[in-house]
């Protein structure tokens, strides 16, 4: 099979195949190989591929992997492999050539474009390579740069494929290439129809170029073209665009620019006036036009299209959108296929948006759940909540510096982050907040002071540079349903974590002694105290709990975003919004608030995709208005539990 392919390659480039060795070709084109450019290196690569030298594939592979080097002393090329001495060298005949120190060798670093060409050239060698990884690479290379030449070798390589996944890939790729490049129209249409409403990006990428259109103008009916539709100036395109089309194909004169007009007028000033118009009057555009027309009439300036002439020229022409593909059958089939696909894609996009919104909601919920406890249940405004989130994230970072292995370090980081922020929360409650329970506004200010101080402390300790908090490999990548709907594993993990917290919180509040006591103290501290509950202790624990959860949220947020001293600040206002919108004192409220804010923000982003800032502004605006309608939030407590 390999021999056949090689033969095929040789046949393709029959003329240049007078058996030059790889070494000879490289020597001839040394300068090009040192500094290759995609635009010029093509022939060299084809020559190499077609040389018939068994070293060709090895050389190309090494070159593409940045393992080709040039010895500085004598400007000869070698294949490099790592060696204690620097590099182990292999010369271009495949013989080992000793070693060389790193400083003696210039590594060749072809850019990605050149590497793409190399990969394409390698396809013929590797499409049936015994190594499945190389076969997969070859397929990737064809998929990235589909061309008519790949079709034949690809078809030839399908039957011999043993790996079922690769075989499926090859067959799909073959159909994609067929629908674009096959000579037979029927085969192309069949290939198109074989996909149905497949939403693959590669299929859309193959179909869309077939229905590409360009605009054309014509004085009469357009003959011999595959017309997509007729377009009307004023409806489908602006008059300016229409006229530009006419100017572009030479059927109308260009309009005069503002500057040219001014220049022409200035050139014809005679004793303080232009064509009878005093210069001082020319500060009005209409007068300038009149003066220019006068000059035009006198033949002193070249005629330029005026507005009337432009309008006349446009009405005299008809405008069309014309397919670049000449075959009507193909364009019709492609349009039909795309029509089916686009409906499905639209539905899937909404689903994807939903997933995005869900994951954003989970992040907001995670950031806000601690607040839902401290603010929602206890009524304590903790502006330093954001800094507790940061503290958790930095804990994760420090643990990762000490504990090897990302998975193990995360397992340590989560409880440790909880413990540290729990302790910080308890300390803050004991030292500051306890004294301010009767003065909520003061709590707000005092905790704000703590927030400022903590933030600066983080800066002093960890610097202002963002710190890495890396997720383990099993959280890398994304769960891809198809080319439209996908969600990264880290976001799934955050959604799961949020759900876990919700469950934990509900369990704690409804099913445990502590939860009972917390609810009792919240509703009536004096009565609770007389029932033998120590409100001080409960307040302390509750606050610690809320802070501890913030710490865990910090680790999770740090995993997908950045760890800086300002991490918490980004979430604090949103978190308060979440709690306030959802309804204070109710975990379901926080959930509802997070869901609403998250999905709303995504929806606004979807409507206005080029500006994410606007989405945030409109969302806050919406929240302010929403509070007007439901001042107590989505889920409002009623009766005695509502407190004030």
């Amino acid at each position, binding site marked *: 099979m390999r021999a056949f392919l090689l033969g095929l390659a040789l046949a393709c480039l029959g003329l240049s195949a007078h058996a030059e060795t790889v070494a000879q070709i490289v020597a001839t084109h040394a300068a090009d190989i040192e500094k290759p450019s995609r635009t010029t290196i093509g022939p060299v690569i084809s020559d190499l591929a077609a040389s018939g030298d068994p070293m060709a594939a090895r050389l190309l592979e090494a070159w593409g992997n940045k393992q080709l080097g040039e010895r500085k002393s004598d400007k000869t090329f070698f294949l490099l492999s790592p060696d204690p001495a620097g590099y182990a060298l292999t010369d271009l005949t495949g013989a080992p050539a000793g070693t060389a120190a790193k400083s003696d060798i210039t590594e060749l670093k072809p850019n990605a474009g050149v590497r793409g060409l190399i990969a394409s050239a390698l396809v013929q060698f590797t499409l049936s390579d015994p190594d499945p990884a190389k076969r997969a690479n070859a397929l990737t290379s064809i998929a990235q740069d589909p061309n008519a030449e790949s079709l034949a070798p690809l078809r030839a390589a399908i039957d011999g494929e043993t790996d079922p996944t690769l075989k499926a890939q090859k067959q799909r790729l073959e159909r994609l290439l067929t629908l674009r490049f096959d000579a037979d129209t029927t085969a192309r249409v069949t290939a198109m129809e074989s996909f149905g409403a497949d939403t693959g990006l590669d299929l859309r990428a193959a179909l869309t170029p077939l229905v590409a259109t360009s605009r054309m103008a014509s004085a009469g009916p357009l003959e011999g073209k595959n017309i997509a539709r007729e377009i009307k100036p004023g409806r489908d395109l602006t008059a300016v665009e229409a006229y530009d089309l006419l100017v572009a194909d030479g059927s109308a004169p260009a309009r005069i620019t503002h500057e040219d007009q001014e220049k022409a007028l200035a050139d014809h000033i005679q004793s303080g006036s232009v064509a009878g118009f005093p210069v001082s009057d020319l500060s009005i555009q209409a007068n300038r036009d009149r003066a220019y027309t006068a000059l035009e009439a006198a033949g002193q300036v070249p005629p330029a299209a005026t507005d009337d002439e432009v309008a006349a020229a446009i009405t005299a022409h008809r405008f069309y959108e014309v397919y670049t593909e000449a075959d009507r059958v193909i364009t019709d089939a492609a349009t039909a296929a795309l029509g089916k696909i686009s409906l499905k894609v639209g539905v899937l996009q909404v689903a994807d948006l939903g997933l995005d919104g869900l994951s954003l909601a989970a992040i907001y919920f995670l950031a806000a759940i601690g607040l839902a406890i401290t603010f929602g249940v206890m009524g304590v*405004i903790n502006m330093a909540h954001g800094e507790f989130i940061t503290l958790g994230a930095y804990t994760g970072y420090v643990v990762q510096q000490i504990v090897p292995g990302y998975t193990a370090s995360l397992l340590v980081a989560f409880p440790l982050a909880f413990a540290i922020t729990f302790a910080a929360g308890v300390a803050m409650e004991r030292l500051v907040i306890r004294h301010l329970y009767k003065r909520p506004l003061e709590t707000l200010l005092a905790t704000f*002071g703590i927030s400022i101080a903590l*933030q600066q402390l983080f800066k002093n300790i960890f610097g202002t540079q963002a710190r890495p908090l890396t997720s383990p490999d099993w959280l890398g990548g994304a769960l891809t349903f198809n080319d439209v709907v996908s969600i990264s594993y880290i976001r799934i993990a955050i959604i799961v974590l949020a759900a876990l917290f919700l469950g934990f919180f509900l369990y704690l509040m409804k099913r445990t002694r502590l939860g009972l006591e917390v609810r009792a103290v919240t509703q009536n501290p004096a009565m609770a105290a007389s029932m033998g509950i120590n409100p001080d202790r409960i307040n302390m624990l509750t606050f610690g709990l809320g802070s501890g959860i913030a710490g865990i949220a910090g680790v999770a947020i740090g995993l997908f975003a950045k760890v800086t001293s300002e991490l918490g600040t980004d979430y604090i206002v949103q978190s308060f919004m979440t709690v306030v919108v959802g309804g204070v004192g109710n975990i379901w409220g926080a959930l509802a608030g997070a869901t609403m804010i998250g999905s709303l923000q995504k929806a606004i982003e979807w409507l206005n995709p080029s500006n994410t800032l*606007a989405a945030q502004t409109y969302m806050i605006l919406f929240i*302010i208005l929403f509070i*007007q309608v439901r001042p107590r939030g989505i889920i409002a407590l009623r009766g005695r539990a509502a407190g*004030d």
Partner: protein
Amino acid sequence: MTDTTPPAAPPFTLPKYPGGTGAGPRPSAALTPKGFLARNPSVLWFLLALAVLTVAVTILSPAFGMGSMSTSFVKTLGKTLCLCLAALAMDIVWGYTGILSLGHMAFFALGGYMIGQWLMYARTEEIVVQSLATSPIPATAQEIAQGVGTQIFGVVGGSDIPLIWSFAHSLPAQLALVVLVPGLLAFLFGWLAFRSRVTGVYLSILTQAMTLALSLYLFQNDSGLRGNNGLSGLQNLPGLAETSQDLLSIWFFWASAAALALAYILLAWAISGKFGSVLRAIRDDEARVRFLGYPVEGYKLFVFVITAVICGLAGALYYPQAGIINPAELAPIASIYLAVWVAIGGRGRLYGSVIGAAFVSLLSSWFTGGRAPSIPLGFYTIDWVDWWQVLLGLSFVGVTLWAPKGIGGLFDRFRGLRTPDRKGAPLGPDEGSLQEQEAVE
């Protein structure tokens, strides 16, 4: 509304000094009508201090005197006076009325933006007209507008003048906007918020959201106010290109001092009367005042709007001295600092807020200016640039916990006034009623 004095406790009718609710009941004084200044000796003291400062700065300034004070320091002082003016407004809305607004710096910045539009437009127009004058054909109005657009917005990748610059060519119009824009925004926001009885911390968070939304909006380039770049070069007044900054800085200093003095007198007068009593009553127990028949929402809205306008004016004086305004000025943190100043200076007394703003902002610029000497501890050197924020944050906690009267409380100490010590016990007969009282007493 009936014209009866609220039958509340005597402290409401007799402020010992502006802002304070009085150190104790002195019913006899309430019966003897006295002049405004006699009842408020602190106003005179304040004006005197301000006058001394103004004269001193003038004498030391490079423009009129010895020049031993640098122009940049004159500007710093001028700006500080504007901040004091904003703090004064904050004190009225928070210290007297009990509305902890975390959005008043938004009004301050809006005032700056409004005056900035004129400063920028007029100065650029001058330059454009001058450069177009060299052409043999007189420039059309469109050409001038286009030139101005390119000059102002070319920097941020645009060239058209947005609609919100429609009045930028006219100083009177923009001056009116300095008052109208913050005023209307405050009216709209306040009307919505107070109408639906949003109070306490909810209101604080909502005001914070307002300033955040506004700053995010202005951060966009499409907002038409040059996005993150903001408006710059504001220190150069149109038509006064040849006037040196030495002179301009002292003019602005005078203007700021005059504005501060005027506002101080007006506000001291307003709150020393019945109006002030109602405000304090609202702060202490909103529900009770409402039951007495006062339109609480109206009072709150009025105060909110008036203070917003004062902040807007302060901003309009501040930013020509700062030279540049950008959306970072509206960040929530700025408004929180305003609250910090007032709290450190002492809430509920006008001079307290002024002292707080001046003290903290000057100290802040001293510490962050790299002028403060580092403290070597042997194993570690305390660099004030790094540690000033920590100190500020902690001192803020300290003030709220142990010295709710702030620096102003020192004056009480000199005069032998004492706060009743209740050891954290509820401040009034009914626990709910006095929660919001800001513990001045």
